[in-house]
């Protein structure tokens, strides 16, 4: 145990409860450290013990998070975390299921599953650490990278319009859409807790600077701002706001009342032998 134990009390659910002994391998300065901290703070606020929480991820730097928590983790393959998480939640509605990943994992290869997860509106919380780059594979452009960002795979920039995940999430049917900034771990923790509590598919896009491949993102902390409007439950109003969003507004955009995916309570009306009746001649 470290020196912290001397100062802090052993409480039932502190953020420390949700941290595993595994130390992150992220570059010092990475925004994901703060997101991990925010997630553990949020889970402490929610108050369920780690063994009742599932943390599901794909592939990438931010997808390493499950092992850094003491929850039940699933580190799956690239782009399919929402599918695995959907299966877990539908099969085990009693668990709290969180999905973590990056912008490449979520919006590129995972794009189709992102659309349908929003649409299906299963009670999940999807946290994307967006650093506008593929960090783990050495710095290629991601769907949220600016069109003029120079890289080896796309010299001079991709020249392709960026993907706007909050617009897509809202349009596809997510019930909670927010943006947070990793540089504000306490604010982020509050948004994540709210997202977890909100029913249906909650999407939190977190600007999380990549210190190694996008050092210029250090200026985010100077230019992000709290959104000027409170969250709305009117999807049309949210849509108007987000269409003029410049990517730097922090806060909850939409907390809706869309019908959520009906989870089965597992009660059986029939026996297996009842099923055989229909085949009888």
């Amino acid at each position, binding site marked *: 145990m470290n020196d912290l134990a001397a100062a802090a009390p052993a409480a039932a659910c502190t953020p420390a409860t949700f941290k595993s002994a*595994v130390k992150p391998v992220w570059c010092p300065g990475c925004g994901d450290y703060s997101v991990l901290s925010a997630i553990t703070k949020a889970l402490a606020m929610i108050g369920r*013990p*780690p*063994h*009742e929480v*599932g*943390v*599901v991820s794909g592939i990438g730097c931010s997808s390493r998070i*499950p*092992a850094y928590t*003491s*929850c*039940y*983790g*699933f*580190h*799956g*393959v690239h*782009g*399919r975390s929402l*599918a*695995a*998480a*959907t*299966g*877990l*939640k*539908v*099969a*085990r509605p*009693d*668990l709290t299921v969180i999905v973590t990943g990056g912008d490449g994992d979520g919006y590129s290869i995972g794009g*189709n*599953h992102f*659309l*349908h997860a929003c649409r299906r509106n299963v009670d999940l919380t999807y946290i994307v650490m967006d650093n506008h780059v593929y960090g783990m594979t050495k710095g290629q452009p991601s769907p949220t990278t600016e069109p003029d960002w120079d890289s080896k795979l796309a010299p001079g920039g991709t020249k392709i319009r960026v993907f706007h995940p909050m617009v897509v999430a809202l349009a596809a049917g997510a019930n909670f859409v927010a943006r947070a900034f990793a540089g504000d771990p306490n604010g982020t923790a509050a948004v994540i807790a709210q997202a977890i509590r909100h029913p249906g598919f909650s999407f939190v896009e977190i600007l999380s600077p990549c210190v190694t491949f996008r050092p210029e993102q250090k200026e985010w902390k100077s230019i992000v701002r709290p959104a000027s409007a409170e969250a709305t439950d009117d999807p049309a109003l949210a849509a108007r706001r987000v269409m003029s969003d410049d990517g730097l507004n922090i806060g909850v955009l939409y907390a809706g009342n869309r019908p959520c995916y009906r989870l*089965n309570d*597992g*009660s*059986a*009306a*029939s*026996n*297996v032998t*009842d*099923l*055989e009746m229909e*085949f*009888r*001649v």
Partner: protein
Amino acid sequence: MVIALAGSGGSGVMTAGTLLLAAAAKAGVYGLMVRTSGPQIRGGEAAALVRLADRPVDTLGDTFDLLLAIDWSNTHRFADEVPLTARSVIVGDPDEGQPPEVFLATGARYVPLQMKKMARAIAGSWVNMVALGFAGALAGFPQEALEAAVRADWKRGDEALAANLSALAAGYAAERGVTPPIVAPQVPQPKAGAKPRWSISGNEAAGLGAIRGGVRFVAAYPITPATELLEWMAPALTRVGGTLLQAEDELASINMIIGGSYGGVPSLTATAGPGLSLMAEGIGLAVASETPVVIVDVMRGGPSTGIPAKSEQSDLSFAVSGLHGDAPRLVVAPTSIADCATTTQWAVHLAEALQAPAIVLSDQFLGQSRAIIDPPADSGLRAQRLRAEANDADYKRYRNTESGVSPMAVPGTPGVTYTADGLEHTEAAVPSSNSRDHRLQLDKRERKLLQHDYGDAWADIDGDGDAAVITFGSTSAAVREAVARARAEGLRVRLVAMRLLAPAQPEKLAKALEGVRHVMVVEQNHGAQFCRYLRGHFDLPAKPASYHRPGPLPLRPGEVHKAIADWRKAA
């Protein structure tokens, strides 16, 4: 007796075929019905192919006794699937033109019957009832059996029922009135006190087997010819407290069931070749993370989009070896429609016991054909996963146990949380690129499959002699009939219908082939995939002969019999 009922959209031949089979069932007879059709969604040419017998049958045999066509549009396309001989009978409506030359050239007897006119004469009746009456009479069914089948399934009101029973009677009487009388094999009358039987398709049977085994979560994407399996399972699962979720694609399907299984619920998906290809990465994830899942592959003509509505056994190579890395997995193949239930149930049990993915190689022929069968007994095998105890301070998810199977912590269990991973890992589930860890985990994942006692279900074996025929899946029935004919001619032939394809059981096969000096492998694919697999992973007494051909046509007992006879002569 083997009957083909053909006609275009609106003629209702599929319904007639289904009713004929139902009548057979009620009359205490066994049967098999295969559907074939053109590519149109509705209105195209279609044929119901029905074999009736006094014992369970899983092939249509070699030739048809009756081809009854309500019209002849594009029916020549079925010529390969409806082989006729000079002893066959063709019944057609002269007002719809002459039968195609390809059928007449066989020398079969042509009996004209103005079915449409007969139906029009009875207001509110459908022409397929006339056809049903005729075919049922020819097969020797009492009219009451046919009527009972129509009544049982009737959904369209009493007036329509009366009209159609009249049409049925008209068709029945017409057959009795043909001169000279048609000579056709009659379906034997059932013995008294016949046991209860089922009418079921292979897809339905697989679904039932899965639920019997304990599956309660399915995520899947529709694909021919697996869709009916999902359609049957959706309400069935709900009734027993489970869930079926239609996924956005096969990539989602395999990952969803991995998630569900990670959560402790036995999970399954069903697909066909193209979907299986998409699932490859996910199946590998199940191997590496040691998550049990069952994937039913209802094989169809390949490669790529191939021939979606026809059967083939050409996914074998992919199933046994088509994953990147060293990725041992379970592969089983049901040998009949009834066996779809037993083998799928077994797959669920194996997957859960060994914490591995299991691929069930069914095919379009089994999946979409309907048969009257003796109900397969519930083997009693269930999903029984080795679970971790709560609060085990020394818990290691991927502990290198002697059996290779390590207890799995299920979410909700306190004190034993871990992160499952596709990355190679230590025994404690920490990602690792270390050589010792990799070797240990590879050995563990292989060992757990190899050390399991699969019992006698790995293959159906019978016969003796120094010659053996080895096959798997839906060809087993045709091979069985062929071998029976060969034995009747005095040939001594062993038959091995292999049910467990992976992991390979070379010792068991060697024992089954003791005393055998000549082996022939029979399969329905172009590349002799099973033969190559056997040669690569088993010890065979000599280089095997191979009788193989691709779909879309099913292997027939006659051709396999000929192949066996020629093979033994040449030996």
